[in-house]
């Protein structure tokens, strides 16, 4: 940690990378200067402020080489599983298999941002009748159609039921385009009725035992299909190992989030924290490496916290962020106006909760699937958000609406009302499209207003 931590531009990273190499930087095979990603299409990097650590370099390189990793997997004969609308359940099962890699096709929603729309996946989606009244995840449809990004998976799974209509509708289109889908049901999580057996879920929710049993039956069906597809057994022994590995990721993220969101000054920028959290969903197509990347990042953060160093001025206003942003630049923007992230609910908080290891594996995974904040009512999600706000000591909340998303029309009202009612802290709602450049002045003004309000 010869350089004090700070956020630097991609231009600055050119110099920084050279210095790190001169100092004997040891990189994995996917390593290299960040500049090359921008030159090969990820142009948004040129507009971002990035953490200057070697650990952050590795994180970005890991993230931005996923397509390459998937192609390499295909070349060496590994099977590829696409897990649509699945925030951290089926990938845990898939990574318990050998020579199988699972990825999250919905993740294509960041392509229009990262590539500043040069990829034309949104235009392709438009041409298929999926316009911008849909969530930006419509980029997934474009990516399947133009086949210029990830290799086509050998098998697709998709959870439906209590899921957003956008993804459900898009997945149906995928199937009609010739990509068979194994659909599995997740029911809307409801409160157990009086006298009805209730099961505790990770994250503090409860569900009726019958709902847990139902999801377990669905996961058994998926497990059977994965066994047949891969030609490998996927019994309790393998699943336990898979859960153990997933929990390793979740434990690392647990400590990283605690240090990242509570330490003063802020030890790691919001952007890198967001990318790190996303690894929980599908491990960026390489579970062992995702563990290594997180270990490096955590080591860096620990060192910074011990040294009392951070990337932002002390006493930045502590903001809790709800929903992931389609444009990564907005995470920079919050910090530019004097805020910092102190707690997040990026729609996959259940993928950060530890999976119970003292239960039959499929029951444990069923409980996790039902703990998905989007599966239940927004009241549940709001309660969890309130709890997390208290835990991290946030002073204000930003609800970042995803344009066109079927759940964003109404849930923001409940979350904002409950946060104001219970905690009495300010809440603003903003909407973040894949590229915010044209909206940046108004977004900046709204964020500034929130920050100024708390600084008084």
């Amino acid at each position: 940690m010869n350089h004090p931590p700070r956020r630097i531009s991609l231009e600055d990273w050119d110099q920084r990378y050279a210095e790190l190499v001169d100092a004997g930087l040891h990189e994995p095979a996917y390593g290299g200067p960040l500049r090359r990603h921008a030159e090969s299409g990820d142009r948004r990097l040129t507009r971002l402020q990035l953490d200057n650590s070697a650990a952050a370099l590795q994180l970005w390189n890991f993230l931005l080489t996923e397509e390459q990793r998937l192609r390499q997997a295909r070349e060496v004969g590994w099977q590829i599983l696409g897990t649509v609308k699945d925030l951290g359940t089926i990938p845990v099962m898939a990574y318990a298999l050998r020579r199988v890699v699972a990825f999250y096709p919905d993740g294509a929603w960041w392509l229009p941002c990262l590539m500043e729309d040069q990829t034309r996946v949104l235009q392709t989606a438009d041409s298929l009748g999926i316009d911008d009244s849909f969530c930006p995840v419509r980029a997934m449809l474009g990516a399947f159609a133009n086949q210029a990004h990830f290799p086509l998976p050998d098998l697709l799974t998709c959870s439906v039921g209590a899921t957003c209509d956008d993804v459900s509708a898009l997945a149906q289109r995928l199937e009609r385009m010739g990509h068979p889908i194994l659909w599995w049901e997740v029911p809307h999580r409801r409160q157990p009725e009086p006298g009805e057996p209730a099961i505790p879920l990770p994250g503090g929710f409860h569900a009726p035992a019958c709902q847990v049993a139902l999801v377990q039956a669905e996961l058994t069906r998926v497990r059977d299909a994965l066994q047949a597809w891969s030609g490998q057994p996927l019994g309790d022994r393998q699943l336990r190992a898979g859960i153990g590995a997933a929990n390793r990721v979740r434990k690392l993220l647990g400590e990283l989030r605690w240090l990242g969101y509570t330490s003063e000054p802020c030890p790691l920028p919001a952007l890198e924290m967001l990318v790190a959290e996303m690894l929980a969903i599908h491990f960026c197509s390489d579970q062992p490496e995702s563990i290594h990347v997180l270990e490096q990042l955590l080591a860096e953060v620990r060192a910074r916290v011990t040294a009392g160093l951070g990337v932002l001025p002390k006493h930045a206003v502590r903001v809790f962020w709800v929903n992931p942003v389609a444009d990564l630049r907005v995470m920079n923007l919050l910090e530019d106006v004097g805020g910092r992230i102190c707690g997040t609910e990026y729609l996959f908080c259940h993928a950060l909760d530890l999976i119970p290891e003292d239960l039959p594996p499929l029951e444990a995974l069923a409980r996790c699937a039902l703990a998905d904040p989007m599966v239940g009512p927004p009241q549940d999600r709001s309660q969890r958000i309130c709890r997390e706000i208290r835990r991290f000591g946030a002073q204000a909340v930003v609800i970042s609406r995803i344009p066109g998303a079927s759940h964003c029309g109404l849930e923001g009202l409940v979350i904002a009302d409950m946060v104001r009612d219970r905690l009495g802290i300010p809440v603003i709602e903003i909407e973040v499209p894949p590229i915010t450049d044209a909206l940046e002045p108004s977004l900046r003004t709204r964020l500034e207003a929130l920050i100024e309000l708390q600084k008084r």
Partner: protein
Amino acid sequence: MNTILYASPLVPVEWLAAHGVRPIWWRACDPRRIDAADCDVDRRGEPGSLLRGRRGVCPLAAAVVDSAARASASAVVLTTTCDQMRYAASWLQYQRRLPTFLMNVPSTWETETARSLYLAELERLSRLLVALGGTRPSNEALAEVMRDFDGARARLLGIRDRLLGRDLAAALITVRETAAPNEWPSVADSVPSSDCRPHHDLRQGGPLRLAMVGGPLSESDYGLFDWIEQAGGRIVLDATEWGERTLPRVFSAESTRRDPLSELADAYFGTIPDVFRRPNHMLYEYLSRELSARHVHGLILRRYLWCDLWHAEVAVLKACSPVPVLDLDASDSEASSSERTRGRIEAFLEMLP
């Protein structure tokens, strides 16, 4: 008698009626009209939490919330068949002004797990109805109610070709509330007379035969039928969400006698083709069969803005349909678009081969 407000064809009216409650189908004024008197209020009873017109909120879901919150019914029953309605139910539960039952209707339908969930939800609904003062029906009582409604639907479908579009649409709602035939418009009143026959017959052989598919049509949308008829068309298949498409199949007499609840579940959950189902090929099989059987000349898809489920199917319908398709989206401001809609309908009919 307790009244239960509901708005989903996947909730069997027989199940509600057999419990001795009065099923009332949701009705409202134009779901796209923003009227201060209809404004929702927040949990503290203060006006302001207006859902209608809020970006991203389905106008129908917002209208259901607004009117359900003011309804005098004992409870409202909504379903998970679309995400917007699922969130609308949560909003009503959060407001706590009317008991709201959100029935889990699985999207998958080809597995025993899905069927068992649907049955379990009917049982859970039964517990609510009993708690509200209803009576759990015996098999015999349920079977009798099923036969009544089956008969009512058969009678209605028997005269459907003789009803005006708006009268058939209204009767298709009524038959989701009561099996009493005197609740329907009489055929004598409804058969298109010389006065109300299409004003602009484009063909000497009679009006153009059209089908309509898509999301729900509320009463305020029935003007569409009038415009179509005035433009020289006639809806011979109302396959919108609250139309003929979502009626259950005819009950098997033997299954009804043996296990009426199971037969009820099979007739509704097992056979109603809808856009939310995964996979949804049953919908296309239904359309293919019915468009052909009814010699349809053109298909109108009517959907609400922000309805992803129908919107995503527009391109597929256009590609699969054997006849031309007109895509009509209904926004929040119908007042400004109604003439546009009418013009598009007229142009569509003019260009039909």
